[in-house]
């Protein structure tokens, strides 16, 4: 799989679109984390408490979870480009199996997930130690495993995006379908289905990996919403990612390229 990843990197590293989307991701993350401190809650400036370890980690990953859509779009472009340029077809002719095609894209998903998790981790270290209240640095890594959950979440989102790419083949419609599903269709279904059931849906599973900070407070207002524990959601995410890889493979297998 590393040689497949190396080939994928030959395609992506010189690709401007790839860096443009990653730059937008990084810039938005930095901006929001930087201005996060100016948020006022109940008339009080959040200020330094915003950057306070260990809670800062869950705030950070919760913010990062919103930008998974960008990563999904990146993966969709990387898949649909292969159809647009007919390079997928050529690579299968030249020696790839259909499983190799999925493995290659999945290796990109893992790499992007890892890169973003490392980025979020470094962001946390920097802002937490620079702006957080001093003297509590011993708590620094207590909440850090949140970043691992974030990694899983990003991989989950991108794997679903990969399915949309292989299924729809064209970048525009695939991105729209992916956004519609994740932001409109599944939320509507969730709304009409009891929590006991919808907690197993992909989007809800993924979002359970980066729960909203001080969710308890929020639920006093909106009413409790049942969702999986983080370890439970993690196990389920692994299952979903496996399923999405198989669906991608099945789509490639059953249709002409």
């Amino acid at each position: 799989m590393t040689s497949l990843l190396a080939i994928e990197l030959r395609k992506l590293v010189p690709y401007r679109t790839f860096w443009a989307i990653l730059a937008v991701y990084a810039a938005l993350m930095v901006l929001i984390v930087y201005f996060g401190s100016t948020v006022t809650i109940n008339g009080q400036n959040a200020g330094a408490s915003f950057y306070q370890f260990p809670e800062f980690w869950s705030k950070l990953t919760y913010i990062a979870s919103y930008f998974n859509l960008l990563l999904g779009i990146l993966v969709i472009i990387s898949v649909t480009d292969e159809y647009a340029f007919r390079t997928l077809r050529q690579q299968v002719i030249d020696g790839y199996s259909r499983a190799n095609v999925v493995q290659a894209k999945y290796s990109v998903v893992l790499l992007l997930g890892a890169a973003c998790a490392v980025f979020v981790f470094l962001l946390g270290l920097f802002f937490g130690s620079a702006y957080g209240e001093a003297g509590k640095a011993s708590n620094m890594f207590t909440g850090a495993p949140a970043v691992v959950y974030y990694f899983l979440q990003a991989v989950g989102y991108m794997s679903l995006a990969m399915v949309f790419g292989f299924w729809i083949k064209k970048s525009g419609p695939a991105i729209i379908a992916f956004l519609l599903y994740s932001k409109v269709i599944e939320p509507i279904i969730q709304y009409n289905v009891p929590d006991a059931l919808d907690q197993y849906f992909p989007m809800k599973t993924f979002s359970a990996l980066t729960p909203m900070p001080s969710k308890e407070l929020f639920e006093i207002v909106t009413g409790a919403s049942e969702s999986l524990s983080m370890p439970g959601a993690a196990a389920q995410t692994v299952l979903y990612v496996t399923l999405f890889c198989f669906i991608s493979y099945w789509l490639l297998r059953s249709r002409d390229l």
Partner: protein
Amino acid sequence: MRHLFQDSLNLANVLDINGLSKRYGKVQALNQLSIKVPEGSIYGLLGPNGSGKTTTLGIVLDVINPSAGTFTWFEQPLSKSTKRRIGALLETPNFYPYLSGAQNLRITADVKRVDHGQIAKTLDMVGLSARQQDKFKGYSLGMKQRLAIGAALLGNPDVLVLDEPTNGLDPEGIAEVRQLILSIAQQGKTILLASHLLDEVEKVCTHMAVLRNGHLKAEGPVSSLMVANDQVFISGGADVDQLLRLAQSLPFVTEAHARTGQVQLVLTPGTDSADLNRAFFAQGIALGQLTVKKKSLESQFLEIIKADSAS
């Protein structure tokens, strides 16, 4: 001469297609196609657009799923190792437009697991060394096509599969590509070539199959397909009616028609024009003129097509 020699030795088939069919909804794109591509041949798959050429190549190259039928490469089912012995260009040159020619070939080489050392030589062979650092999207159609042929040649495959390799090229580009194909064939490689241009198949190929509406209409060595239908024109020595009557009585004449001042004949395969002359002489007629006209592939092709629409 190489292919004739190999025919007589009955060498292995590089590709053996057996009863291949493909249906797209209501359209039967390919119907029970069976052909054999002998080792060392330049095999032309000839037919008008939509006759099933690309479908056939797509199936044997693993990108289209057949509805029925089987095929083997080198007498084995298709696998990663057989794929490595095949270099192919299907329909259009397929590359990343934002990468340079050399960058694109590096990806091809990695996919084929070929050493990058071959890239410079390949670029040189297809005449793109000077433009290798330029982006693919800036290439002319001819350059794109040559890059695709170069990519197909990477890894020194035993078989080259080329789908309409001169499509959209200017006359100079066409001549270059044909020259390239012939020089590759001289290295002992088998070439499977799909084309809707009769002229191309006639100039380049040793064997051919004619496809129409997904049906195989004719198959065999180009030379035998052409010899089988040679036309002979005779005149002089007697009047046209007498020549016609005598010709029709000969066992090896399959067709005879009176034309202005001469008689047009078709002989059974294997018959020599000398046999014809001898037969007339035996009847006391010394022919004034006897000309053999090899029918062009084009008129044969049109005949095959016509025979199909008449039936």
